């Protein structure tokens, strides 16, 4: 049993109180004395040459304080890519400058090229409308196949064929993979699209720049998952100001899902404008701006081939992918389709030979970057769809085929042919659990019942694995990362024994304030109510790499445990002195330091007090105070895994798909708060079902975004989804971090899309529509109906 409120308890969330009473403090809720308002002017064409921007009329309008254009930022640096991915021929990747505001050319609809700052938002908007921009529209490159094939179409004048890199993984294995395909008894081929998505955190992006001319300090309030990285990028790369003169505060953040990991130009613009005007400058995106300018997700076109024997044993896997990076490289855009995708192509299987080729392609569309799952949903979708297709071609049972190809529990640690070492897992166990909780045995009766109502019922399966807890810095450094990927925590014990924990992870819905307090409470034996979790402010926290990639607990939580261990170690020295015992004889348990085998003890509070009022204290050998910082750099990735089942009803008359059941059997390692873990899975699955059935960011041939509002972009709503059945009892603790945790934030979005599509295909086949082998997402009624008709 978990300790009351400790590790493993479904403690309700403390942060809910402020969110439920309207007391949350999101960036848009913050108003600084004397603030002015910014409005960005964005390109209406996908590609154009900026000849002239006439701002005279706008400058003369009421309340206007400043108008800035790309020329005002031309001397600043660009917003860099965080990973360098070389091509397989050794060439460096192409890295065009991503300026604060577009200068010379605009490269996607929504590309900001001017900003107006005025006394009121209405005045700023009115003046933005008065700017006259002479922009010559150029041909837009939207389709990736066309972008790589047509040398006359260039997003960036200096980059022929719009290819950022042409990456092979692992190049040395290619010949062996090709040979295996030549010799294989059966090859299944599938061409598929992983549809482009808009992350759509419910809180639009917002930033407030606040420059203090008295001290020369900059402060930025912004909607970020990753405030320290934003500070580093803005200070060192973009604005060229000392890092210690910039504070980045990410207060309550209303969801991120990847889209708020990155630094965006608006942040530097409001800081620069604040300095120029000597007053705070606030910008809040409206939803239309979010659609046009937030980093989008996915957008792969993939050809995948699976070589097997006639019994369905996997022999080799080969993929070719075009990955859209949009008009500019967003911070993680080069890592997402490569090291977060290609390295996962083994899935949970023993496929002996794998080769992955990814070409990253510039287009005149919004930048594309990591969105919940980031590369791993794309990998899982490709694998699980081709496996299902192979099973149909060879008339094999999809459960049995998966089961016999899974890595077995006694094979860990398992080295895959794509460069990862899975530390632990039990994939057959989660598959068995899934079959139980999804009630596979009752499916036939349910299908018959659906048939009586004229509906086709299908059951789809997927197994999945991901690498998270990113990442061992030395390993990713070799692979091309330009930052370290450790995390940091400071545990500050106050004189009165209560605690502030400063964490480099950032909570924007994950419940860190509750869960992290549970962990520290459990380790130190003091009530969680005496522990505060502080996050999202670079002036309070030593450093941090933020929250994404399901890394908060595995990396940030591990740093916290390490810092707690240092507190306990120091406490033992203090206790040894106070209790006149040898340090080795001091044991710490349930909040007490005691001399082993005796009843002599000091409480945690007494030790804390002594550290700050060191009257009886080993001052000659130990500093006063009780505060410790730890950096934790993981030894490996973590490898959550699981098996998902989706049950659908398809109306063959209309093509409408209804998800009538969804079950998840996951292995997240040790679970700190089951209630929160379940919630993370629900949300991820909802996004995955959204990708599979509803969502698509669609551009027309001219690069106009056709799905630029909630009128056109179909978000999953309450009546689109069923109740979910989730289980995480088959857990194998991570072997290399102190909490044994793996991460759960992205799982649902990774495992669910192929389960949904497999279920629809299953329903169609059971209904006699056996020629339908694949339908590209989203499986809208028109696509499903058309597939049935054709």
């Amino acid at each position: 049993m978990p300790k009351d409120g400790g590790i493993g308890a479904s403690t309700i969330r403390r942060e809910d109180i402020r969110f439920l009473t309207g007391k949350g403090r999101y960036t848009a809720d913050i108003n600084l004395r004397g603030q002015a308002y910014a409005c960005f002017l964005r390109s209406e064409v996908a590609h154009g040459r900026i000849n002239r921007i006439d701002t005279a009329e706008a400058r003369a309008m009421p309340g206007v304080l400043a108008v800035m254009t790309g020329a005002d930022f031309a001397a600043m640096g660009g917003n860099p890519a965080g990973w360098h991915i070389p091509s397989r021929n050794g060439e460096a990747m192409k890295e065009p400058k991503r300026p604060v505001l577009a200068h010379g050319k605009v490269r996607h609809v929504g590309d900001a090229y001017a900003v107006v700052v005025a006394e009121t938002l209405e005045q700023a908007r009115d003046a933005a409308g008065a700017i006259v921009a002479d922009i010559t529209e150029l041909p837009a490159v939207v389709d990736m196949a066309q972008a790589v094939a047509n040398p006359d179409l260039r997003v960036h004048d200096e980059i022929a064929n719009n290819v950022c890199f042409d990456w092979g993984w692992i190049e040395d294995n290619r010949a062996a993979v090709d040979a295996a395909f030549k010799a294989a008894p059966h090859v299944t081929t599938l061409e598929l699209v992983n549809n482009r998505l808009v992350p759509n955190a419910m809180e639009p992006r917002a930033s407030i720049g606040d420059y203090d001319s008295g001290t020369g300090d900059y402060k930025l309030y912004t909607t970020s998952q990753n405030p320290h990285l934003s500070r580093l990028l803005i200070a060192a790369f973009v604005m060229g100001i000392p890092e210690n003169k910039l504070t980045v505060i990410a207060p309550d953040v209303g969801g991120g899902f990847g889209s708020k990991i990155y630094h965006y130009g608006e942040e530097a613009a409001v800081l620069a404008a604040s300095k120029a005007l000597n007053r705070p400058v606030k910008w809040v995106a409206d939803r239309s701006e979010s659609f046009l300018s937030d980093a989008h997700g996915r957008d792969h076109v993939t050809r995948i081939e699976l070589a097997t024997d006639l019994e369905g044993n996997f022999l080799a896997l080969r993929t070719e992918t075009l990955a859209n990076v949009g008009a500019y490289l967003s911070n993680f855009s080069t890592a997402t389709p490569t090291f977060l995708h290609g390295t996962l192509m083994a899935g949970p299987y023993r496929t002996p030979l794998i080769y992955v080729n990814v070409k990253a392609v510039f287009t005149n569309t919004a930048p594309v970057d990591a969105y919940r799952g980031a590369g791993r949903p794309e990998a899982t979708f490709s694998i699980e769809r081709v496996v299902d297709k192979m099973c149909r071609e060879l008339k094999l049972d999809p459960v049995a085929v998966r089961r016999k190809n899974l890595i077995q529990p006694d094979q860990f640690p398992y080295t895959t042919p794509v460069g990862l070492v899975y530390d632990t897992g039990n994939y057959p166990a989660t598959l068995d659990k899934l079959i139980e909780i999804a009630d596979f045995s009752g499916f036939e009766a349910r299908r018959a019942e659906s048939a009586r109502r004229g509906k086709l019922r299908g059951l789809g399966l997927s197994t999945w694995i991901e690498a998270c807890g990113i990442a061992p810095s030395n390993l990713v450094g070799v692979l091309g990362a330009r930052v370290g990927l450790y995390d940091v925590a400071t545990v500050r014990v106050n004189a009165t024994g209560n605690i502030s924990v400063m964490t480099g992870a950032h909570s924007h819905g994950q419940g860190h304030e509750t869960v992290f307090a549970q962990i520290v409470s459990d380790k130190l034996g003091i009530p969680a109510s005496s522990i505060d979790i502080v996050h999202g402010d670079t002036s309070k926290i030593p450093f941090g790499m933020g929250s994404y990639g399901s890394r908060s607990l595995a990396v940030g939580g591990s740093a916290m445990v390490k810092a707690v261990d240092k507190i306990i170690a120091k406490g033992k020295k203090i206790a040894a002195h106070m209790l006149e015992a040898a340090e080795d004889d001091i044991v710490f348990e349930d909040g007490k330091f005691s001399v082993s085998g005796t009843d002599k003890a000091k409480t945690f509070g007494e030790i804390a007090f002594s550290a700050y009022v060191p009257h009886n204290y080993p001052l000659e050998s130990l500093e006063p105070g009780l505060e410790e910082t730890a950096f934790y750099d993981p030894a490996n990735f973590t490898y959550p895994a699981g098996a998902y089942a989706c049950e659908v009803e398809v109306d063959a008359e209309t093509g409408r798909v209804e998800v009538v059941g969804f079950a998840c059997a996951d292995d997240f390692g040790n679970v700190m708060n089951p209630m929160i873990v379940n919630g993370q899975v629900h949300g991820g699955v909802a996004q995955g079902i959204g990708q599979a059935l509803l969502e698509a960011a669609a551009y027309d041939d001219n690069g106009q975004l056709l799905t630029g509002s909630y009128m056109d972009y179909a978000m999953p709503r309450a009546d689109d989804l069923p109740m979910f059945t989730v289980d995480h009892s088959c857990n194998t603790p991570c072997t290399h971090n102190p909490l044994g945790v793996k991460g759960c934030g992205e799982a649902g979005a990774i495992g669910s899309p192929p389960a949904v599509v497999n279920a629809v295909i299953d329903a169609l086949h059971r209904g006699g529509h056996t020629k339908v082998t694949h339908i590209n997402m989203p499986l809208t009624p028109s696509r499903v109906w058309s597939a049935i008709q054709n």
Partner: protein
Amino acid sequence: MTDVTMTVNGKAVSGDVEGRTLLSSFLREGLGLTGTHVGCDTSQCGACVVHVDGRPVKSCTVFALDVAGATVRTIEGMANADGSLGVIQQAFQDHHGLQCGFCTPGMVMSAAALLADNPKPTESEVRHYLEGNICRCTGYHNIVKAVLAASGQDVAAVAAE
């Protein structure tokens, strides 16, 4: 600018607004009631739902001047008199019906309107009613549970885990 007066969360309030000032802007900027959120500009997301004379309204679609004299209730007015969470708010906390919290004020206000009209809704009725409130975090599972629980129904029957 025109002076507008209304009752918000039991208090008479007034302020100068432009004809184009939305109720959501008046609440947020004029009164500092930032619990009402704005998540879109097409009246789709529902983060801005408040009650006007007891009916749920998307406050981003209503001009402040149009509700002159009305009685408005926002998320800030949903707690009990002693400051403790109201029944619906408490159910949202107990059932983890919120994550990032951004859609939550609108979700709670819509749920309150639903339960005022239909004190014992079915799961399907809850889902249908909340169709105008978008949540990106929860997948709605725990929101639906919370609303059913707030109505006094046994949620174990509708959600297995």
